[in-house]
């Protein structure tokens, strides 16, 4: 618990001290979306109505932004600390490395959520979208977060072993954007099963249902989403432990 508070304080200090970077991130993310929005409207012609579609895309986009922040915290943080040399100090802690990084991630989650809400608010104002915020959005959000942490730990593992993963992370971000905007919830047949297996996709689909389409939460699908989240989360932690061992064997914890 005191580790959590210490991490909270640390991320808060770093965030507030570098507020300009954060604001830059918020504005940048928003502008990119607005650009996409305007150009789509331009191509589609002035009479085009987005309707639910737009709301769905906004949900996907904001989730994607959240995912990027989490990814940056865990995988990006790991990479940066390996470069500057603080990483090895973390591994000297009597807390295990996954615990330290999870605490970090949880601590910054709160801050990330706030940042994300401001992005969402900005986008809503700019595009005139009307999303609803029923309390049923939280259970699927939880499953998305589980998946996001899992994927981030998996990428963190890569960072730990390969060190130079910036290029990979960049490409990966676009794959994620694609993933978050896939309308998996409307898929049928065997595609549907794929939609269940893709990381975070079922949770994101449910969020679009409740926030953009105003549907009730389908608890059955939610169970699938939860299972999906738990699987990816466990996979991420497992990979992370494995890569920690490998890095210790190869003497590569620091940026050798």
């Amino acid at each position, binding site marked *: 618990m*005191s580790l959590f508070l*210490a991490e909270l304080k*640390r991320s808060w200090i770093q965030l507030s*001290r570098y507020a300009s970077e954060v604001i830059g991130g918020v504005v940048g993310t928003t502008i990119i979306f607005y650009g996409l929005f305007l150009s789509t409207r331009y191509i589609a012609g002035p009479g085009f109505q987005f309707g639910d579609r737009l709301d769905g895309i906004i949900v996907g986009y904001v989730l994607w932004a959240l995912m990027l922040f989490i990814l940056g915290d865990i995988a990006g943080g790991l990479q940066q600390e390996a470069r*500057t040399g*603080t990483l*090895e100090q973390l591994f000297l802690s*009597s807390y295990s490395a996954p615990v330290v990084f999870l605490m970090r991630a949880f601590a910054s989650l709160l801050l990330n959520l706030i940042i994300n809400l401001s992005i969402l608010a900005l986008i809503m104002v700019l595009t005139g979208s009307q999303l609803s915020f029923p309390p049923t959005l939280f259970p699927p959000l939880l499953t998305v977060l589980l998946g996001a942490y899992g994927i981030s730990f998996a990428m963190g593992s890569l960072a730990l072993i390969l060190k130079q993963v910036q290029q990979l992370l960049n490409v990966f971000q676009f794959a994620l954007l694609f993933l978050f905007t896939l309308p998996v919830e409307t898929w049928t047949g065997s595609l549907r099963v794929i939609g269940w297996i893709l990381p975070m996709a079922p949770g994101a689909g449910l969020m679009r249902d409740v926030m953009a389409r105003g549907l009730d939460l389908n608890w059955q699908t939610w169970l699938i989403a939860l299972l999906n989240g738990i699987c990816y989360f466990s996979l991420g932690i497992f990979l992370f432990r494995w890569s920690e061992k490998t890095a210790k064997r*190869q*003497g590569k914890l620091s940026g050798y």
Partner: protein
Amino acid sequence: MLILEASHLQKNYRSQGKTVAAVRDVSLNIAEKEVLAFLGPNGAGKTTSIKMIAGLILPDAGQVRIVGRDPHRDACARRSIGAVLEGNRNVYWRLTPEENLTYFGVLRGLSQRTAHQRAKTLLERFELTEKRRSLVQTLSRGMQQKLAIAVALIHDPQLLLLDEPTLGLDVEATQSVKRLVREIAAEGRAILLTTHQLDIAEELSDRVAIINGGEVVVEEPTTELIRQFSNAAYTIELEHALDSVRLDKISRLDVVIKHEKIYVNQLKLVYEILEIVRPLPFVQVVKDQASLEEIFLKLVQENRMKC
């Protein structure tokens, strides 16, 4: 009491299909209050050994025990280790010294309150109180290094590992790091330090281990090592050059004379000469001491010839 027991550590790295034997056989013991200087040329395997001891690199063979516990198996053992690693920042540059100390205190298992108190004490002791609210990136190199040592001590570990703690520091900062190392050892901690500045090792260490090509080639108490390598040679320095009569007498003995200095290689000759020069004033009679630097070069070169 032995704080560190490392026996027969061995590590091979595989890189690009080739195997590098970084550490072949390293055994080190350090007791409390003891400073062991770990010396060796570049690439000898010092950092690899230190990281194996810290639990950051898994040895291929051998054992590490810190206060009886294995840091690779037992997370508790890591509580007894503090480390400042080579060429690293070791601390967060975007935080202040105070924030760093408190954060790492909690990370190393202290409560927030204890961490804060310890931070205050350490800041004072390391003369960083004035700078406790400045960002680390704005501090001088010496202060950053002092902070790194303070952070390594925040949880009061029994073993302190310092990999080149004086690298890149100016004379004054080196001096204060030396003083701190001495104090920290006196508190009852065991210190393992590597350095390429042999005068520092000579001044600070109780024992020296020299590693070359991944193997410890000597391990002895520092004074013992220096004594062994010192020739039984003496220099008598007079205030003025000798007059011709005395010069003649002394020249007949097995000595070398250069102006006011007489070099002698037997103790009994020293007395004979002193008899002859009486009552002329002399400046000093000294026994030649090998410096650690000469010993080091000798050992490392000998070893190179063997291969």
